[in-house]
């Protein structure tokens, strides 16, 4: 029974400046459901990308042994050929094609390039029956709900003779009924001898169906729990997930917190496409002068959506709520208004949303406040150069000159350019969304110091982060966002990683 179908030994993977995986060991037995849990950034997705060949051999270190042989996957087809199939959180279906077309995409039953649709439809009916989906193979995928689309993905895997099915957060966007149905299906597949790796934040679900559970933290395997010996408890998993040493990773700061400056009342926003779905469900918060408020939560909890909807309605529709600065209502209906009122939002995705990558450091720094380096619409090159040079030295941006395009800078230095841009706009309230994502430890420390000094200058700081130690190390208060609303709030002293994690995973069933 305990024969391993997959063994991953000592897997490591480094990106420029970041070690994503240090030492992961994972053994999955034939015909079992193996849960993989860990915080955001613990390395779960990277690990699965190594396994499926997205990061080809030899870009990683360590060994992958599948069905008793060492494998070196160079591409996704390599791993799929052996029956390792991954279903990502964002489904990889083509919405306007039919179920049958999707299931056989790239794998069409064909002779001389002519598709045998009769066979495709017959096979599709078979696999749809296996996953219990009662739909015509000709139905377009876009006409199905998310839950059914998930089943189509699994059917697609079955059509490829799957041996090891990997599901990355399969229930994240499903409601309770659909989630339960999916978990039952996994157990059904298990009885047919298909092994499964289940990656999920919903610890209760993992505990319910998994035969064994591997906990990852900071790119390493912390422990593997055998659920047959003793049922895995959520608290046990949480402790393993977060129990890291808190070293001197954060610069010291003595908070000087003043009066309430920034208030948001009952903020609500709907999804921009699915307009009947309320994503931000009445968030209220206050931030005081010189205070750092942290917002914890899972991906998809609505933190970025909240921040962007607040910042000039950059996300969502039908946005309602009040924003006050120094007790006066302010207009944040457009980005220009929000900036003028004194808000700044440092995005989590600096490449796509923060920087004009092809342009010079100088031009990026002044972009949000061009008026300050221009007279009657004409830019003063000298003044701009001086401003850019000032931020370059103040923020320790390492670049050959301010004429260097930002695309050539490292992640940490790019982040400093984004921060410079917003500091030059001189905001009172600074919303930082994952300010240290993808940045090496040294640059992180610099950015932490900078955030501290901004707070000391009396700015209000809202810091969204998925790294709990960072929140605990930096913030004066931490709010936990869960499913579009604040589920809990902790003062600096009383917050612990365990408490926050409990608040994060609580309520996940709704």
């Amino acid at each position, binding site marked *: 029974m305990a024969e391993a179908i997959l063994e991953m030994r000592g897997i490591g993977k480094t990106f420029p400046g970041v070690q994503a995986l240090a030492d992961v060991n994972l053994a999955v037995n034939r015909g079992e459901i193996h849960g993989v849990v860990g915080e955001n950034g613990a390395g779960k997705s990277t690990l699965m990308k190594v396994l499926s060949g997205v990061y080809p051999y030899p870009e990683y270190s360590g060994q992958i042994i599948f069905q008793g042989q060492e494998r070196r996957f160079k591409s996704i087809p390599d791993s799929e050929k052996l029956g390792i199939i991954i279903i990502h959180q964002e489904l990889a279906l083509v919405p306007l094609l039919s179920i049958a077309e999707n299931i056989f995409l790239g794998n069409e039953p064909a002779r001389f390039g002519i598709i045998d649709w009769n066979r495709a439809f017959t096979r599709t009916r078979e696999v749809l029956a296996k996953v219990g989906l009662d739909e015509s193979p000709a139905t377009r995928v876009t006409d199905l709900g998310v839950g059914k689309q998930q089943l189509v993905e699994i059917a697609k895997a079955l059509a490829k003779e799957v041996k090891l099915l990997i599901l990355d957060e399969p229930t994240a966007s499903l409601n309770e009924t659909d989630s339960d149905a999916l978990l039952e299906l996994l157990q059904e597949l298990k009885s047919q001898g298909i092994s499964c790796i289940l990656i999920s934040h919903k610890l209760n679900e993992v505990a319910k169906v998994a035969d064994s559970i591997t906990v990852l933290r900071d790119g390493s395997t912390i422990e593997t729990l055998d659920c047959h010996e003793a049922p895995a408890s959520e608290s046990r998993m949480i402790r393993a997930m977060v129990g890291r040493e808190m070293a001197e990773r954060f610069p010291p700061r003595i908070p000087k917190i003043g009066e309430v400056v920034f208030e948001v009342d009952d903020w609500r926003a709907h999804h921009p496409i699915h307009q009947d779905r309320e994503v931000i469900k009445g968030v209220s918060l206050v931030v005081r002068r010189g205070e750092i408020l942290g917002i914890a939560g899972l991906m998809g909890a609505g933190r970025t959506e909240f921040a962007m909807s607040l*910042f*000039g309605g*950059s996300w969502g529709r039908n946005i309602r709520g009040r924003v006050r600065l120094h007790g006066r209502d302010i207009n944040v209906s*457009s*980005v*220009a208004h*929000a*900036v*003028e009122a004194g808000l700044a*939002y440092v*995005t989590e995705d600096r490449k*796509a*949303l*923060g*920087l*004009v*990558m*092809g*342009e010079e450091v100088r*031009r990026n720094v002044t*972009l*949000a406040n*061009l*008026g300050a380096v*221009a007279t009657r*619409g*004409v*830019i003063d*090159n*000298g003044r701009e*150069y*001086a401003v850019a*040079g*000032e931020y370059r*030295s103040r923020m320790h941006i390492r670049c050959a*000159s301010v*004429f260097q395009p930002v695309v050539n800078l490292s992640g940490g230095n790019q982040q400093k350019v984004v921060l410079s*841009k917003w500091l030059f*706009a001189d905001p009172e309230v600074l919303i930082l969304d994952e300010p240290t994502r993808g940045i090496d430890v040294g640059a992180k420390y610099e950015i932490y110091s900078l955030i501290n000094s901004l707070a000391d200058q009396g700015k209000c700081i809202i810091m969204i982060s998925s790294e709990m130690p960072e929140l605990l190390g930096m913030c004066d208060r931490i709010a936990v966002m869960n499913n579009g609303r604040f589920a809990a709030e902790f003062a600096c002293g009383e917050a612990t990683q365990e408490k926050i994690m409990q608040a994060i995973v609580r309520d996940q069933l709704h």
Partner: protein
Amino acid sequence: MQEQIAAVPELTPPSRASAAAGTNWLRGHLREYGLLLSLVAIMAFFQVMTDGTLMQPLNLTNLVLQNSYIVIMALGMLLVIVAGHIDLSVGSVSGFVGALAAVLMVSWGWHYVPATLLCLATGAAIGAAQGMWVAFFRIPSFIVTLAGMLVFKGLALALLQGQSVGPFPETFQRLSSGFIADPLGGDSLRLTSLLLGVAAAVIMVVLKVRGRAAQVKHGMQTEPLAVFALTQSVFATVIVYFAWLLSSYKGLPNVLIVMAVLILGYDFITRRSTIGRRIYALGGNEKAARLSGINTERLSFYTFVNMGVLSALAGLVFAARLNTATPKAGLGFELDVIAACFIGGASASGGVGKVLGAVIGAFVMGVMNNGMSILGVGIDYQQVIKGLVLLAAVVVDVYNKNK
């Protein structure tokens, strides 16, 4: 500020700096001048092949007149392309406006001033109509302007009822075929034109010297003095030489003045104004630009309005040059205009491109048209060669960028 700048590390030891700096600097900026050098090479080639006909004053004047409307539209097109869009309708719009001008002035006998103003306003309205769909309704510009191309080609045909309308009043013709007045006189040489050319060269040098002084004051890295002096004297000489050539024929054409003013204006807008800067940011990364508080929709909209006005102006210039409005006017202009921008280094994905590049690109196409016509190359192979040059220019550019 000054202290920090002094702290910028000097890569070369000062003793050898001046000699090495020149070559280093040249290597880094060769691409900037590469385009200009290709134009010079192409001109030299045709000058030799046509036994000196290319640079004869008469032909040079023709070269300016023939390309003026392409250059004028290329200025607007550059902004549209930098903003990340494209406008396929410019040829049809210019043809339509030319037809409108003919109807107003020839059929209805309007004075040329109100007629011209109405034509430019019409261009703005057309640009606004297309820009509205692109900017506010997010319809791809390729499709909107493809539709516009058909619509205005058809409207021009309808307006002229399929016939040529002309001739225009003489005052209006001068827009294209006139030359600046010559109060200073001169028998074989138009002195006023020559002096204007000299004045332009002097002003350019003075502005460049002052700009350089400002850069030095702020501690910016500048080109080595020797290179600066050399390039400036070459440019000044070229300007004076061309002014002399043109002066020995009929002087500076009116349309050259219009063109020069527009080129300088748009060059300034793209390099120095906040609007220009924002257009580059919009094309470089629209989402980042919007999150930096830039009203990207409105900006896109105005680039199309601007394009409409310049298309209208080009249509007037072309109609005045032919002295008649024909249903075929403007046919295929959009291809030359877009090619000029891409030869000039604009990027199809937006965010990159220079006004002077587009102007040089337009003249590259223009000189090739002119030179090949003199050589008697048929219209068939002219197009083949132009197409290959466009492809080659962009391939070289992309290759250089990836290196």
